[in-house]
């Protein structure tokens, strides 16, 4: 009986292995002749409903599905027409009139200003619809439609009006939704106005999108775009190496090194849109200026913050924490890829690594070193012992903490590392203020207004200690005034100047200390992808740019063309078949001989 069982198992294994080849062949069948581009994702999607979705992967997919009033120009990143083909502004800057393009939704219905008006009004009247992009309509007084004209009246002037992040939704398909908070929008095919239509979604498995024939720029070159989800980055890298996916973005330096020498993969390493910075608790307060949290009193002194800044060797951090795949920050939170907005410190103001100068500043300010080498406050009460708060399970931050501890030890400051899970981390560093120095970072959009707004007085928690969205608890009159001025400044060069001054203020006051700008690290299969255009077009980003442009311009080899993937598929089938036969024969022989042997044993 055992023998039969063994044979059965062997047969099962063989069928499986051989079947694998057959399946590979069969699986190619329906896709034959089609151009399919497959993107890997390691973040899970939060919602297919653009009113609710906040994660990068979801908003990226929505950018491929829906049109906006304007989108960043692929060359300059300045706002350029999308669904709005032109616009005018009233003299006082309060009334904006957008002319909506004559185009069609993917179901053939015309796109009108009414769709846009419905979208914005929904967000202004339904709290749940504000979930994803609430702040974008905060300043809207009224939104009305008149044929193809969309008229938005503002409460106060807003120069960043052309960077509106809200996808325009089809009124005819969405107006029946009553409970927005619980609407998952899993209806396929979706009604889209962008280059792609979502046709299928299996949660945590994949999303399938098809080219939208009604897209106003013209149908994309590929037939199908698939987003394939992996639960962990190692599996996604393996998927890219095997060719299960064609593009993978958002890699860590360590992951990037794993694909760098693969002959089939183009390793994509460009300036990124993320700034990593230290958040310094310089005296956290709520919006009514009441102190909260237990930050170290020494950090209220701008001299101490500057000394900390001088004590950090950013180049070393880049080389050893980021494996050289980043750029040391000599500016603020706007990374250099945004050439227009980027500000960099020069001359006197520039803080370069100089522990001697850091020591000098602290000595002069009266922070005396004790016999143990640790400084104390001028009043002698507290030692300069800071906590450095990082996330659990992030090896890069662990390493960063080690270096920071060593840097600050040089200037007589002790650092202990505190690790918090992400929910506790957000709470302590953003609301309760229970930290001294914390790691932080921000992926900056083409218009830096939002990231700068995270340092406004009004972003601090409300008097009851709730809400807000501050990145620093910063509240500075100069910074506030500059922010208000740039809101009203419709002349772009002048506004750029104001925004640079805001970055300068953040740099000198040091409520945050930018340490480096991480590179955008991605990889794609050069044996499959025939062309793809990054955004911005000159050394820009692919998936990391979270724009539609690379995904609209991409072209791949058709599945039927005997490309590498097809070939390896049939090879795999053949080899798997041979392996299967060998396994059957081997197992059969094994069990036969065993059987004989054991009978012989028993007969002794």
């Amino acid at each position, binding site marked *: 009986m055992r023998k039969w069982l063994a044979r059965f198992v062997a047969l099962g294994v063989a069928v499986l292995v051989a079947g694998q080849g057959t399946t590979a062949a069969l699986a190619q069948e329906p896709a034959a002749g089609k151009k399919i581009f*497959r993107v890997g994702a390691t973040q899970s999607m939060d919602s297919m409903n653009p009113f609710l979705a906040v994660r990068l992967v979801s908003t990226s997919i929505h950018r491929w599905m829906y049109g906006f009033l304007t989108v960043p120009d692929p060359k300059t990143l300045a706002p350029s027409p999308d669904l709005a083909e032109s616009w005018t502004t009233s003299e006082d800057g309060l009334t904006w009139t957008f002319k909506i393009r004559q185009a069609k939704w993917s179901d053939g219905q015309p796109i009108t200003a009414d769709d846009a008006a419905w979208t914005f009004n929904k967000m202004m009247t339904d709290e749940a619809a504000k979930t994803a992009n609430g702040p974008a309509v905060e300043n809207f007084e009224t939104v009305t439609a008149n044929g193809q004209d969309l008229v938005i009246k503002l409460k106060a002037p807003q120069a960043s009006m052309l960077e509106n992040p809200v996808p325009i939704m089809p009124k005819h398909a969405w107006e029946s939704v009553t409970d927005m908070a619980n609407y998952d929008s899993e209806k396929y095919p979706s009604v889209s106005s962008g280059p792609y239509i979502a046709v299928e979604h299996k949660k945590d498995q994949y999303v399938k999108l098809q080219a939208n024939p009604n897209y106003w720029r013209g149908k994309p070159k590929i037939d199908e775009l698939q987003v394939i989800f992996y639960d962990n980055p190692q599996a996604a890298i393996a998927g890219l190496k095997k060719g299960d996916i064609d593009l993978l973005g958002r890699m860590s330096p360590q992951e990037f090194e794993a694909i760098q020498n693969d002959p089939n993969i183009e390793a994509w390493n460009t300036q990124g849109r993320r700034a990593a910075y230290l958040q310094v608790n310089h005296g956290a307060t709520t919006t009514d200026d009441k102190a909260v949290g237990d930050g170290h009193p020494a950090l209220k002194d701008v001299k101490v913050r500057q000394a900390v800044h001088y004590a950090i060797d950013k180049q070393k951090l880049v080389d050893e924490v980021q494996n050289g795949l980043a750029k040391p920050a000599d500016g603020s939170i706007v990374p250099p890829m945004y050439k227009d907005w980027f500000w960099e410190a020069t001359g006197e103001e520039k803080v370069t690594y100089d522990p001697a100068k850091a020591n000098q500043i602290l000595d002069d300010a009266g922070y005396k070193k004790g016999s143990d080498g640790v400084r104390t406050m001028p009043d002698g009460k507290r030692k300069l012992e800071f906590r450095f708060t990082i996330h659990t399970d992030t090896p890069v931050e662990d390493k960063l903490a080690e270096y920071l501890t060593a840097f600050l030890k040089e200037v007589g400051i002790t650092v202990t590392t505190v690790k918090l899970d992400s929910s506790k981390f957000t709470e302590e560093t953003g609301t309760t203020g229970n930290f001294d120095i914390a790691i932080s970072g921000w992926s900056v959009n083409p218009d830096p207004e939002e990231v700068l707004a995270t340092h406004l007085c009004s972003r601090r928690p409300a008097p009851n200690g709730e809400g807000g969205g501050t990145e620093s608890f910063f509240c500075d009159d100069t910074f506030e005034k500059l922010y208000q001025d740039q809101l009203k400044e419709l002349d772009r060069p002048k506004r750029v100047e104001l925004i640079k001054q805001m970055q300068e203020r953040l740099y000198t006051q040091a409520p945050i200390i930018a340490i480096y700008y991480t590179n955008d690290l991605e990889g794609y299969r050069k044996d499959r992808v025939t062309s793809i255009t990054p955004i911005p077009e000159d050394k820009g980003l692919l998936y990391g740019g979270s724009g539609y442009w690379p995904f609209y311009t991409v072209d791949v080899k058709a599945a039927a063309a005997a490309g590498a993937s097809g070939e390896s598929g049939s090879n795999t089938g053949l080899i798997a078949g041979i392996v299967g036969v060998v396994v059957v024969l081997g197992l059969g022989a094994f069990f036969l001989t065993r059987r004989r042997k054991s009978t012989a044993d028993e007969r002794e």
Partner: protein
Amino acid sequence: MTTPLESTEPAVQAAGSADDSPARRGTLRYAASKAGGALFSIAMVIVGTFFLFRMLPGDPVRNLAQGRNMTPAQLDLERRRLGLDKPLIDQFFDFVGKTLRLDLGTSYEYKRPVLDLIGERIGPTLLLAGTGLVIAVSLGIWQGTRAGWRHGTRFDRFSTGVSLVLWSVPTFWLGLLLMMVLGVGIGPIPGLFPFRGIESVDAPDGFAYVLDVASHMVLPCLTLVAVVYAQYLLVMRSSLLEEVGQDYVTVARAKGLRDDDVRRRHAVPNALLPTVTLVFMRIGFVVGGAVTVETIFTWPGLGQLFYEAVRVPDFTLMQGTFLLITVAVILMNTLADVVYHILDPRVRSA
């Protein structure tokens, strides 16, 4: 773990008719007392779950905000929507009442009823973990029997050694290794098996679909079996070792039975009991899936769901999956007790 509660069973006992044999009545009585104990445990779990998940650090609403700028009004709205604005005691009774009606609430993350999500995920989990369990148990019992029967032989040392090495290997590491070697392929060896999900993105229909799923199961199943079969092997081996020197085995041999028959008909049935208990206890955990394996291979099962819930964190979803897993373990433990009772006369008379 289960506490017999004699007071909860008269109703069941009364149902037994008078002409039942005493032994059968004994079993029923025993089963009823075990069931009562299980019900009590489940009640405790429900209470425990509620408080456990409210003791976790982090405010779920703030967490949902994910660092976005939210006004206190928006936070309040979210809180009301999730029922977190009510006093704790009201929330508790709400939770208990709903749980008893099998309403596990709505997931924060997926915006869908937790029960629906569990329903979707339980199939793949049972398929993967169930197949894994069957293979691991068969392999463990087979090798354990051989190893125990001829302990000290090369087969014994080899199989015990290999299984112990695999048992000590971290699941994540082994999974990734198998993924690289058998999934991606190394050098001249091509990647043989897929390593993501339960089916291909463009999955075929009919029999080809069955093959597709089966081939997706190979690597996760292999990982799952490799790291756990040692326990069945070791338990089987040691309990068989105990039996080898027993008088009845000597008697059976003296009767002139073939070695094979002595083992199969006499020693193994007696040695099987501890393994049966172990298997039943593991069945309970099967429902929980293998969180690590499902996460490595992106298997759309309950383990992945639980992992995702922890990652968010999505309290209702965590609560629901946690409850399901514990209840399954309790039920299977109870079943193990009852089966043990039936299988082993010694337990019955005790």
